[in-house]
């Protein structure tokens, strides 16, 4: 059913606009003066001020690869992350570890590991699916580049961002 909205009847003073105009001017000058004396909270001035210190523990930034305490690359090139990545940002080329390697029983390692940061949606599924705890989303959020190829993080870059992580998976260590 149609609702009829009763228009308010304005008196002469209200129809002359003046009270409304003066009221408006009063509101805006209040904001102006408050801002002038720095009493207004404003947006963070981003490149100078950063919110890094306020970032929560669970923040999902750029995905990175990590090495373990023996400086072994943890990734075993199982390609699970490549399969699960929704936007297909990850490309892995697996390789075989040579027999004389200390970690040869691991058998596989990623020869190439690229994450296209233009594609990545920071969903964290790669971190969740990884059986080796080799891939982690770190707190880097300002990933920039001038070309598309610059935005593809290769293995070197991923390790540089990821660094070393201790503990967690010990199954490849020598038996004590």
């Amino acid at each position, binding site marked *: 059913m149609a609702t009829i909205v009763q228009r308010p009847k304005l008196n002469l003073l209200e129809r002359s606009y003046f009270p409304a105009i003066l009221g408006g001017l009063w509101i805006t000058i209040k*904001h*102006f003066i408050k801002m002038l004396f720095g009493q*207004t909270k404003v947006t963070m*001035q981003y490149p100078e001020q950063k919110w890094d210190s306020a970032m929560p523990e669970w923040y999902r930034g750029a995905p990175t690869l990590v090495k373990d305490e023996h400086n072994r690359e943890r990734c075993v090139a199982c390609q699970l992350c490549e399969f699960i990545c929704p936007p297909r940002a990850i490309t892995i080329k697996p390789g075989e570890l040579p027999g004389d390697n200390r970690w040869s029983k691991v058998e596989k390692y990623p020869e190439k590991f690229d994450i296209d940061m233009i594609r990545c949606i920071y969903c964290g599924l790669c971190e969740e699916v990884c059986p080796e705890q080799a891939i982690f989303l770190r707190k880097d959020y300002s990933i920039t580049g001038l070309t598309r190829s610059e935005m593809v993080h290769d293995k070197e870059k991923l390790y540089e961002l990821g660094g070393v992580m201790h503990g967690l998976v010990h199954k490849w260590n020598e038996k004590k």
Partner: protein
Amino acid sequence: MPSLDLFLQPEIFLVWTAALKTFVILGVVLTMVAYSVWAERKVSAFIQDRIGPNRVGWAGLIQPVADGVKLLLKENFVPGGVNKFFFSIAPSLAMIPAILVLAVLPFGSSLFGVPMVIANLDIGVLWVFAVSSLGVYGIVLAGWASNSKYPFLGGIRSSSQMISYELSLGLSVVPVFMITGTLNLGEIVQYQVDHGWMVFPAWFQSGGGLLEITTDNGGMFGLDLGQSLLWIPMMISFVIFMIAMFAETNRVPFDLPEAEQELVGGYHTEYSSMRFALFFLGEYAAMIAGAGVIVTLFLGGWSLPFVPDGSQGWFWGLVNIGTFFAKVAAIIFFFLWVRWTLPRFRFDQLMKLGWYVFFEVALLNIFLTAGILAYLQS
């Protein structure tokens, strides 16, 4: 030294002082134009709880320079199908009238005996109205020559806007001339020095007042009957003139020719680079000229109560010039403040306001002033 004598001959003295004043005023005003753009951005930001430009220079103070360089380096694009001649002269037509108005504004009393006005015309006010109304041609021509519908609508709006406020603009200042008895802007200011500002008539020369306080240097402060009576029509004039000035300078709430939300950019939609900049800066130059006219007619021009004029030494001459520009800056701030407060009037509302309200009130105001003057003289 014969060469110095040559410079002091009356005619030659007039020429080079006028040239000097012209250059200095042009420099000052163009700087003010650039910085009123900055002020506009800052004021709007502050009113909206933002920070505004703060990257180029301290508090963004070099921003106008950066903007200017950017506009100079942009491609000066001429769309196909435009009327090239009118398309290229329209921006200048928008800028020039605003600057010409400055010629007759007394921006100070005198400095070393040289009157601080470029052209002391006896028809000063008529010159102001005649020239500043030409500014509308820039807009109309731009709209028409652009061969595009949005600019065209902007141009049409501009002309209909002009016919609806121009009458009340002219009529609203008639009472000022009736009281001062002159069209010369310098003399109007001098009248306000003697009798108090038009909107604040709180001092006068000779006795007979309702309330008098004599100050140390012989001036009298207080109210006299005539001035308090004339204050009423003066306030009406002031309000109407101020509002008509908003329309004349195409400022919100009367920025119909531009109306970003409805007409893209209005009359300057098709313009780029320096041609666009001329329109943009012309608007601010018109605003400064308009503020100058308001200050001269109603706010006592360069005068401050009981501050001597330039004949008392160059220091006071400089104080007077500073006072004038401070008052202009205050009026400009008011323009900006209003812009970021009020919504735009609709087309028919503006015409209604101009024809039904302000025209009549301004006309009645003339009779009211005449009545009061007749009563005072009898």
